[in-house]
């Protein structure tokens, strides 16, 4: 697994990860982070826990490809993707995407691009425990549309 792409069960600390991303790089002027968190309500139902399944091996490969593509499209000094798997509770952190660049536009666009591609291309699946029992989360049309806007 690359130093800048991690799939893990443990939580992560935002300050620690951003410090690592920036370490020794005085040409960074902008750092954008995205943290996805577990909401207690999804599609109108209470979510008690969330289980994140993934495809070990392909996940890391897909995330590295997305990260590489972001570095090809934007001028980035560094970037980082962490995605958690296993059981999660409401308010838990799920995913961190962090991008560092000289000027803010690159960092903002690259972070959005990575999230949009991750949502539609990285093999993770969410299963929610609701009062009506477990259910697999459906893919969202809005995520597909968001990813398509980056097509060249």
């Amino acid at each position, binding site marked *: 697994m690359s130093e800048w792409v991690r799939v893990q069960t443990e939580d992560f600390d935002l300050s620690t990860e951003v410090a690592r991303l920036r370490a020794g790089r005085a040409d960074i002027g902008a750092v954008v982070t995205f943290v996805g968190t577990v909401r207690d309500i999804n599609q109108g139902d209470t979510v008690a826990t969330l289980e994140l399944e993934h*495809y070990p091996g392909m996940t890391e490969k897909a995330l590295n490809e997305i990260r590489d593509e972001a570095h090809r499209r934007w001028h980035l000094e560094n970037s980082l993707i962490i995605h958690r798997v296993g059981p999660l509770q409401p308010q838990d952190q799920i995913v961190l995407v962090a991008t560092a660049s000289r000027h803010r536009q690159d960092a903002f666009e690259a972070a959005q691009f990575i999230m949009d591609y991750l949502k539609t*291309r990285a093999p993770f699946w*969410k299963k929610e425990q609701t009062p009506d029992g477990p259910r697999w989360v*459906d893919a969202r049309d809005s995520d597909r549309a968001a990813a398509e806007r980056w097509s060249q």
Partner: protein
Amino acid sequence: MNVNILYFASLREQLGTAQETLTTEAATVGALLEELCSRGPQWQQALCDNPHLQMAVDQTVAHRDTSLRDGAEVAFFPPVTGG
């Protein structure tokens, strides 16, 4: 030849299996799918009648016409929902 087949998420639950090794003559993912779906209505429904079915060969997104090689890792799964 032998292929290693993986099933994920809702597909894994519907089919009651996460992994199998299959000896097959299927030259493509599409041919392999036909072979799997001939096992019965449960397989037909989960795989061949599923308009959202996703597939990968050797951990790269694949299509029905993607070729298979001996020892290939083939995966079937629903649309991804991470992030």
